[in-house]
């Protein structure tokens, strides 16, 4: 009987795939780090009687094999696009909107927990005698919700967070929500949850006006650009076809800065740390990323220029360079890494302003903010 060539091809192809994967596992060097996922891949699990009987060995082997499957990034990308094309974005880590922007999925929060954090912030305002200025950055998904497919927009609860802050008392919310909703569609990276230089500048401008001071014009900064930026939202989404983008850096003119970190030796005379462009994550370019305490001194500032205490997450790292010309000293505190008294710091540096610069997600969900003192 003549054999059907397509049956031969079906069997051959199936056998080839079935054999190629174990051959790859056995004979190719094991990858230890995934650039796409920015994490170390699983190591081969070690067998033990305990693991065998409680099924954890089976799970560990499966996780290990999945981590080391050949063409893993491509396969994960195929799955991400299959999820996108079948409309199931709602179950993904990041959504792609109609303009191709990747936005992080909405966060969930508990209103009572938020109130506990706000209570800490209000108390800090009382102990320092400084009214906390709340510069809270809405998420890109919320700002761009008009461009999201289906009813995904309804899942973003940034407005609830912002109104809770506005009505809480003992603090002042810098009004940037409407500004971002109306004009800020492009103020976020396509591949990252952070604001761009434009977004940071808009927030800077709003902050300065609320403080009753004239902000510097955008031209008062040098604009540097670096091409090829790929942010963390793209890693979360695995939508690899989203192209890299350009990052703009606004550098203040005529400042004489020294930057010191509480957890890094040395004094630096630059606000931007370009060595991070060699890494997977470029965002630490701004002020070397997050440190417990970062102190920026501007010796060119007017002698009566105030001292600013900024409690912040990474959004503050792009805002701070814009504020440098207007302050003698900016003390930045990241409560995720700094557990001691913030009010002591305010006293120590003679702070005249207390600014909280956070994303809505962090202010609503970060447990560290409950430890503020």
């Amino acid at each position, binding site marked *: 009987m003549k054999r059907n060539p397509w049956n031969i091809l*079906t069997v051959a192809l199936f056998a080839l795939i079935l054999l190629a994967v174990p051959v790859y*596992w056995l004979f190719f060097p094991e990858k230890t780090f995934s650039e796409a996922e920015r994490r170390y891949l699983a190591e081969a699990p070690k067998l033990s009687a305990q693991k065998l009987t409680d099924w954890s060995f089976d799970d560990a082997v499966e996780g290990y094999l999945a981590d080391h499957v050949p063409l893993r990034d491509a396969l994960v990308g*195929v799955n991400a696009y299959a999820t996108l094309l079948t*409309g199931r974005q709602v179950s993904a880590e990041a959504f792609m909107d109609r303009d191709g922007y990747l936005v992080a999925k909405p966060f969930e929060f508990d209103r009572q927990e938020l109130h506990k954090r706000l209570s800490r912030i209000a108390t800090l305002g009382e102990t320092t005698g400084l009214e906390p200025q709340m510069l809270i950055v809405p998420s890109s998904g919320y700002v761009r919700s008009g461009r999201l497919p289906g*009813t995904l927009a309804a899942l973003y609860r940034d407005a609830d967070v912002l109104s809770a802050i506005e009505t809480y008392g003992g603090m002042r919310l810098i009004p940037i929500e409407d500004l971002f909703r109306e004009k800020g569609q492009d103020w976020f990276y396509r591949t990252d949850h952070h604001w761009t230089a434009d977004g940071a500048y808009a927030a800077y401008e709003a902050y300065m006006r609320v403080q009753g001071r004239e902000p510097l014009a955008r031209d008062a900064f040098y604009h540097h650009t670096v091409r090829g930026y790929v942010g963390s939202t793209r890693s979360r989404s695995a939508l690899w076809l989203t192209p890299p983008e350009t990052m703009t850096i606004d550098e203040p003119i005529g400042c004489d800065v020294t930057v010191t970190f509480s957890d890094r030796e040395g004094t630096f005379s630059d606000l931007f740390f370009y060595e991070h462009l060699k890494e997977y994550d470029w965002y630490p370019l701004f002020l070397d990323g997050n440190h417990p305490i970062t102190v920026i001194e501007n010796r060119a500032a007017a002698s009566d220029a105030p001292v600013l205490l900024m409690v912040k997450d990474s959004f503050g790292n792009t805002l701070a360079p814009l504020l440098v010309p207007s302050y003698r000293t900016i003390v930045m505190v990241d409560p995720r890494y700094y557990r001691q008294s913030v009010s002591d710091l305010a006293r120590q540096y003679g702070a005249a302003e207390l600014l909280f610069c956070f994303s809505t997600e962090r202010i609503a969900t970060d447990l560290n903010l409950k430890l503020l003192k």
Partner: protein
Amino acid sequence: MVFSSLTFLFAFLPIALIGWYVLPRTCRIGFLLLISLVFYAWGEPLYVLLMIGSIVVNWAIGLLMDRSKQHRKLYLIGSVVLNLALLAVFKYAGLFWNTVRGLFPAPLSEASVSIRLPIGISFFTFQIMSYVIDLYRGKAQVQKNPIKFGAYVAMFPQLIAGPIVRYVDIEAQLDAPERSLSGFADGVRQFIVGLSKKVLLANAMAVLYAKLCENPSAIGILGAWVGLFSYTFQIYFDFSGYSDMACGLGRMLGFRFVKNFDYPYIAGSITDFWRRWHISLSTWFREYVYIPLGGNRRGKARQMLNLLIVWGLTGLWHGASWNFVLWGLYYGVLLIVEKLFLGKRIERMPGIVRHIYTIIVVAVGWGIFSFTDLSALGIWFGALIGIGNRCLLGTESAAWCLGYLPMLLICAFASTPVAANLVKRLEHFRWFAPVQLAGAAVLFLLCLAALASQSYNPFIYFRF
């Protein structure tokens, strides 16, 4: 080990297939038994001894029964009691004890029974019983070779989730598996279809169902119904996908197993549904319980009682929890009602009405099936009719239901034989073979992509 895992696909299966096709004919069945035991031991390193014990004892009983003229019935009873006792101890002891403790809480409150269920025990025990009973009835020949008998019971494709292969159906194949290229290719295609059902459809429905189950009081009436149907699809594609994979693997090895599902969701009545759902189980209960109880030969009243017994047991077979018994009796009553008067009326109704009636009854049945906690079941059924759940569709559930609408429609389509019929009609065109191969390759790629993504867990430095 499950078929829809990288461990199975790229470690176990290549070894199994190479061994099966490379080893000399005389050692193949032995190899199949050995590798099947490894397959089982991967998930059940201790209980594999229980299964081996059960195989050896029942094989020996088979031999004794074959040699004995007078004590055949005694051996049969011994084997059935032993097998049911295994099920009673390892599957139902916890349920029994908890129920007794619930009835007499005072003296028994401290004691508890905790025996983990050995995987697949319900399947392999029923297979073993089919052999012993058919041997007693003279329908099957004695299997003198313990390796062959072991291979029949433990054969990895059907070991842990069926189909329940009766010994008489595979007796001849054990001696001479039908090995052919076209059979292997058919097996590959069937396996990929089954894998796709499980990985692409059932798993997607599982995500939707789990999300909607998180907070039934906030999902809205429509959300509750979508949840019910997502579970209805999940269980079908999960189970029938597994059966397809089993049959496909069987074909690759040269065995033909009975068809276990025949598009149950296009059924026009509940009677019809049960002719199409888990056919090997229904056949087993009909052959070894319903007919021995007298079936429909002892009058209407006895038939109704027999149906209730069979369906109560069918429910209990599915799990050691009272909701499964409730689910079984639900079908028992429905089948009785259809037999007594509804069946003829349904037949006269338009097709669309019959299908809607069936699918709603079946979906509600899955609701009973899915909740082992009866109070959670009550909350869900309340949500279906708007008790404790007043809106039509909650905000979050709207986003989920809308997002999953394309998958729900794909599942609805895949529940019908339209695609399979199309394939049959196009099969004789020459251009169709490459299209079919490309389709299978794309499905396999999508399955691998989904499996590789299960550990995708980007560590995003917390630089918010």
